[in-house]
Structures are given as structure tokens and as C-alpha cells.
């Protein structure tokens, strides 16, 4: 391949360029309830990628013809702020962001009891503030927490991560140079309680066995992400009394 700016090697002495192990995720920080105006919201930092999500609703559907008498209309919009990428991104929707909005919606929908909110809209807005690969997975992690924060009835949270192949090695959670110059990338999301897979995309070149291995890595990482999502929600909703009690238990 003849991509400009590609480093000679993406793996040096068995370590990745940012020092991580092959199956090591970047640092994940989740905060619930960061946008007071929204019914639910969350911010997710996954390494250098930051996504914020706001949920409004269930509320009136606009335009009205989208209203469904049997269930809520789930509207998902993923966008990147113009200064979130190395080159300035043109504000507003792009073909890429329209597709990601669609797959993010398909990843979240199975977890929501949409049938409990007929004739309403649930609007999920996601902005990528800073992009360093894995933006759709950070978006899903944030949106799932925001939906729960909004008190919307859900079957489960949705946890998401990507794994890929770089310099012949299978790696968890690619960061930018690995994403740009690697061989394959496989974004993934699941409902951890039942292990049902709600998002799966892949581009690159992989064998079936490699895909099986990447699925395993992704599923294992999603279990961890799930715990972090639950902790973030607990932190938001815990009262002082709860916190005191927890402290008492841990002593």
C-alpha cells in the first residue's frame, strides 16, 4: 500500500505504538448526565476519542407522519464537529455520518422497549468532539448510557468496541495509525446480558478463523465496557445515603 504518512511498523517488539498489549483497550471514561437540557446524556472518552450523546424524549414526533401507532420512532443522528479531525470536516451530515447514524440506530434499537412508547419519538443526538478512531463504538457506548439516563425502559445496555488486524496481528480497539494503516477493522456491539450482537461491520481482509477470534476479543471487552457503563449510571443516580452505605460495606 502506498498511503502517505504510514509508519514503518505498527508493532515494535511485540508492543503497539502506544505501548498497549494486543488485547488491551484504551482508557475508557464514562460520565452520565452531562447535558442538563437533555432527558438523558453521557460523555465517553475512549483513548483520544470523545463522544457526547443526548437523548430527548419520548416526545412528540416531528415530522408527524413518522409517528408509529405501535411503537416509538427511534431517531439517531451521529455527527462530527468540524474541528474533531486532522483536516477540518465540513459541518453537517456526510455520507459517512448518515451510514453511521443508521448502523448506530440499528445497534441501539434491539435494547429499547420501543413498543412501550407508541406514537412518540426518541431522539438520540451524538456529537464526536475529538476523533481518534473508534468513533462509532464510543457513540454507541455513550448513547446507551444516555438512553438509560433518560429513564427509557430497556432490555439491556448496549456495549461496543472494535477489533482489527494490523501487521498480521489481531488487536483490540485500534487507535488512529492502526485504523488508518491496518489490514482490517471490525466494529461490534452487543447486549452483554444475552450476548446478542446488535452491530457488526468489517472491512479489510480476514479469514473466517480470524473473524471468530476478533468476535471473541470484542465480546470479552464488551463485558468490561458494560461494567463501566453501569458504574457511570450508578454514580449519577446514587444518593449520598447510597454512597455512604457502599462505603460502609467496603470497609
Amino acid at each position, binding site marked *: 500500500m502506498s498511503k*502517505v504518512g504510514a509508519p514503518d511498523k505498527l508493532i515494535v517488539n511485540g508492543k503497539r505504538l502506544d505501548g498497549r498489549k494486543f488485547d488491551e483497550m484504551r482508557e475508557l471514561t464514562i460520565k452520565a448526565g452531562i447535558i442538563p437540557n437533555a432527558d438523558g446524556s453521557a460523555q465517553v472518552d475512549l483513548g483520544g476519542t470523545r463522544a457526547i450523546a443526548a437523548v430527548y424524549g419520548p416526545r412528540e414526533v416531528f415530522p408527524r407522519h413518522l409517528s408509529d401507532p405501535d411503537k416509538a420512532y427511534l431517531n439517531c443522528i451521529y455527527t462530527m464537529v468540524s474541528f474533531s479531525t486532522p483536516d477540518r470536516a465540513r459541518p453537517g451530515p456526510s455520507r459517512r455520518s*448518515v451510514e453511521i447514524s443508521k448502523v448506530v440506530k440499528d445497534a441501539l434499537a434491539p435494547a429499547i422497549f420501543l413498543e412501550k412508547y407508541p406514537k412518540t419519538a426518541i431522539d438520540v443526538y451524538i456529537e464526536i468532539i475529538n476523533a481518534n478512531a473508534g468513533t462509532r463504538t464510543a457513540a454507541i457506548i455513550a448513547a446507551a448510557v444516555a438512553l438509560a439516563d433518560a429513564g427509557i425502559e430497556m432490555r439491556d445496555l448496549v456495549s461496543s468496541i472494535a477489533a482489527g488486524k494490523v501487521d498480521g496481528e489481531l488487536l483490540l480497539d485500534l487507535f488512529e495509525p492502526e485504523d488508518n494503516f491496518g489490514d482490517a477493522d471490525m466494529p461490534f456491539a452487543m447486549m452483554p446480558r444475552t450476548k446478542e*450482537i446488535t452491530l*457488526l461491520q468489517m472491512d479489510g481482509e480476514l479469514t473466517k478463523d480470524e*473473524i471468530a477470534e476478533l468476535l471473541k476479543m470484542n465480546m470479552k471487552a464488551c463485558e468490561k465496557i458494560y461494567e463501566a457503563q453501569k458504574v457511570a449510571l450508578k454514580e449519577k443516580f446514587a444518593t449520598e445515603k447510597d454512597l455512604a452505605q457502599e462505603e460502609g460495606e467496603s470497609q
Partner: protein
Amino acid sequence: MKTLKPYLSALLGKQMREDNRGVYDYRDIQVEVNPVARANGSARVRIGATEVLVGVKMNVDKPFPDTPDEGVLIVNAELSPLANAEYEPGPPGPAAIELARVVDRGIRESHAIDFEKLCIRPKEKVWVVFLDIYPINDDGNLFDAASLAAMIALKHAVLPKYDEKADQVLYKELTKEKLPMRVQPLLTTFAKINGSTFIDPTKREEKAMDARLSVATLEDGQISAMQKGGTGTFTQKEILDLIELAIEKGKELRKLLK
């Protein structure tokens, strides 16, 4: 619509389909090579009643800055209201964009086109390949029809003449030079209704389906793209089983590339 899903689901429970197909059988596939004389390459593919027209046009332009010595591929899909009562005129919506991008990824990520051979002068001039997808009749599974038509159109595409001195593409003068192709990615799409998976969904099956999985396979059994769609889910086992089937079905489809 409320009776459609239980009906199809009951059929699938007995390993049956509305059109008497097996659950992992494609509908009848017909292929027409280069139906459009003005195009550099084109194909018309029918899968059952689904019909898709794909054309290739080429142009000379600047390369992308991060790939200065590689040609460019641009895939677009237009879901024209001519092809289905539910389509509306206007700019491409999410469904059209998803279709174009999934077909694009299968080709791009496997380097199906030898993009480096499409470089005329690094950093300055490269061939741009426009691949445009037009469903003529959408009766489900546009993904596989579009991907098959795309590969046929690319395979049979020839370059127009390029007058380097005048920096002009002579669109009316086609050379005999074929587009440099390396491998042949093809999409195989499965759908799932109430826990039953099946191949090549019709429009009615798509309306009732919970989820969809498209897998792009290469002739050596490698996978070059995947895309899950729909608001339902798949299990890990289902995905691995469907990948296995996709590799097998890809071999059948590949025979149509000739």
C-alpha cells in the same frame, strides 16, 4: 403487515419460503454484460424480480492527498422512485448511502481494482472510476444484485482515451485497455425472522425481517467486508455459520462473473 411476519416466520419454521425456495437458495439470477453502449462498462443483473443496472464511467482528476499514486473509486446509488412505490425523489437517503458504501467497501478494502495502475502522474493525475448503481425494480436484496453487477461492470470496463498533452479525456474514444482487476469480492446477504436465518430476502421478507447480514467474500475464501443491518440481533454462532455459507455461496455467484 401485521400478518406478514407471523406467516413468513411460520413458513421458515418449516424450512419453507413463500416462493418455494429452500432457505439457503438464491432466486434465479440472470446477467447481462455491457447493456449500455455509452458506459465504459456496465451490467444488468436480475435476482428474481429484483433488477439492478450498474455503470462505470471514468475520468481523470487529482488523487486524494493520502494516496497520491492511486486511482480513485467513487460509488453512488440512486434509489429512483421508478424502482419501488415506496421510494421518493430527492437526494440519497440512508438506505441508498448504505447500499453504495457497503458495495464500495467490499471492492475498496480487498483492492479489487489495482488502484496503483490507475495512476497517470503521482500527486497530479489519476483515473477516477465512478460506479453508479441504479435499481430498476427492487424486490429485495439490492446488496447482492448491486455487488454482482458492480463486479461484472468493472470486469468488462475499458478505459477511454486520454490525451495527455491537451489534458483531456476523449470520452467517445474507448481504448481496448481493461480496468486492472486483482480479485473479485461478492456480497452474500442473509436475513433473519424470529430466529430463522435465510439467504437472498425478497422485498416482503425484508419488510418482515428483524436483521440482515451481508458478507463480502473473495475467491480464496477470505472475507473483505461485512455489514449487519436491521433492528434485530445475531448470535456469535449464527454469524460464524453464515460466514461459512457465504464462502460457499460466493463460489456459486462467482461462476456468473465468467
